[in-house]
C-alpha cells in the first residue's frame, strides 16, 4: 500500500510537471510567420541631386518566428528579390539593377537575418542582425514595432521599422556611382510587413 501510494504520488508529480511545462511552452511558443508580400510594403528612399527619390521592392520572402514574451526564441529572416525594385521609372530601375549598382544578375537577393531581439518598450524592439547586399554582410540594428491582430480567427502580425544604411558599405555604387556628389550615401529603408502564420 505504502509503495503503491508512493508510486502514485511520483507519477502524479511527474504528470503535473509535464503538464505545467507544456502550459508554459504553449503560452511562450513563438509563432512562426511568413511575409504576406502582396500586403506588405518595403520602401527605400535616397537623395538624388538634392531631391528625395523613393522606390520599393515588390517581392520578398520572410521566415519570421516571433513572440514578444519569448524573444530568445524569436528570429527574423527576410530575403528580398532585388530585381523586383520599382522606383516608378523604368530607365532608373534598369540603371539600379545594373552592374554598377545592385548587379541583380550576380546578386539577385538581399537578406536580413536577426537572431537577437531586444525589448525596447511596449511593442518596440531592436532587431540585431546582419544585412547582406551584393554578397557584402554588415551588422545592422533595426528598430521595429510588432503587434498582432486577430483577423478571421487567425493571429496576424504587423511589423514595421525604419533604418538608415550606407549604400557604399555594401558596394552599391561602383565606378562613377561611388561618388556621393549626386547620389547620397545614405539610404533609408522602411517597411511595414504583414505576417501570416506559416503553414507548418
Amino acid at each position, binding site marked *: 500500500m505504502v509503495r503503491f501510494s508512493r508510486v502514485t504520488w511520483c507519477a502524479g508529480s511527474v504528470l503535473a510537471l509535464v503538464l505545467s511545462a507544456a502550459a508554459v511552452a504553449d503560452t511562450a511558443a513563438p509563432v512562426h510567420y511568413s511575409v504576406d508580400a502582396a500586403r506588405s510594403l518595403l520602401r527605400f528612399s535616397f537623395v538624388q*541631386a*538634392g531631391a528625395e527619390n523613393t522606390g520599393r521592392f515588390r517581392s520578398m520572402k520572410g521566415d519570421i518566428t516571433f513572440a514578444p514574451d519569448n524573444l530568445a526564441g524569436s528570429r527574423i529572416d527576410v530575403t528580398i528579390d532585388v530585381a523586383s525594385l520599382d522606383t516608378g521609372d523604368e530607365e532608373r530601375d534598369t540603371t539600379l539593377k545594373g552592374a554598377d549598382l545592385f548587379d541583380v544578375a550576380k546578386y539577385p537577393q538581399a537578406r536580413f537575418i536577426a537572431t537577437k531581439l531586444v525589448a525596447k518598450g511596449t511593442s518596440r524592439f531592436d532587431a540585431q542582425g546582419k544585412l547582406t547586399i551584393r554578397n557584402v554582410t554588415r551588422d545592422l540594428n533595426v528598430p521595429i514595432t510588432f503587434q498582432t491582430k486577430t483577423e478571421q480567427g487567425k493571429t496576424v502580425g504587423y511589423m514595421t521599422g525604419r533604418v538608415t544604411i550606407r549604400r557604399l558599405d555594401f558596394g552599391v555604387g561602383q565606378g562613377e556611382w561611388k561618388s556621393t556628389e549626386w547620389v547620397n550615401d545614405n539610404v533609408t529603408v522602411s517597411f511595414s510587413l504583414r505576417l501570416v502564420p506559416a503553414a507548418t
Partner: protein
Amino acid sequence: MPVRNTTARWGSIAQLFHWVIVALIITQFVLASIAADLPLGLAKLATLARHKSVGITILGLAVLRLIWRWANPTPVLPNTLKPYERVLANVTHATLYALLFAMPITGWLMSSARNFPVSWFNLVQLPDLVAPSRPLYEALHTTHAVLAWILIATAVLHVLAALKHHFVLKDDILRRMLPFTSSR
C-alpha cells in the same frame, strides 16, 4: 542710369532681368542638348539636375520681373509703328513672357510625372505637382519640346525686330534695353 523705368527707357533693374534671363535661357538650351546626347548615367543626372535648377531660377525671376513691370512705367512703342507691327510686337512680348512661365512649369510637371522630384541647386526640394504617370510624362515632354521650339522662333523674331529698329529704322528701341547707352 535710373533704376526705375520711364516711358522712354528701361531702368537698370528691368535691363538686368532681361539680360540675366537671356543668359539663363541660352544656358538651358546648352544643358538640354548636352543631356539629350548623354547615355543614362551620373553625367546625365547631373546635367538634368542643373537644367532643373536653372529652370526654377528663371521661373522665380519671371515672377519678380512681372511684379517689377507692373510697379513701373512701361516704355512706350514708337509712333512710327504700323498698327499690325504694334500688334505683332505686343504678341511677341506676351508670348515670351508666357514662355518664361510655361517652360519651367512644364519641365517641373514632367519631372513629377516621371517621379524624379525637382530640387533647386540641392538646397530646396520642390513638391511634386502630379502623381507619377508615364503617358503624362510623354505628353509633357513633347509639350516642353514644342514650347522650346516656339521660344526659339519667337526669340529670333524678337531679335530681328530689335536689329531692324536699330539698323534700319535707326530708332531707340534696342538702345533703351542696353546698359551703358543713352537715348537720343
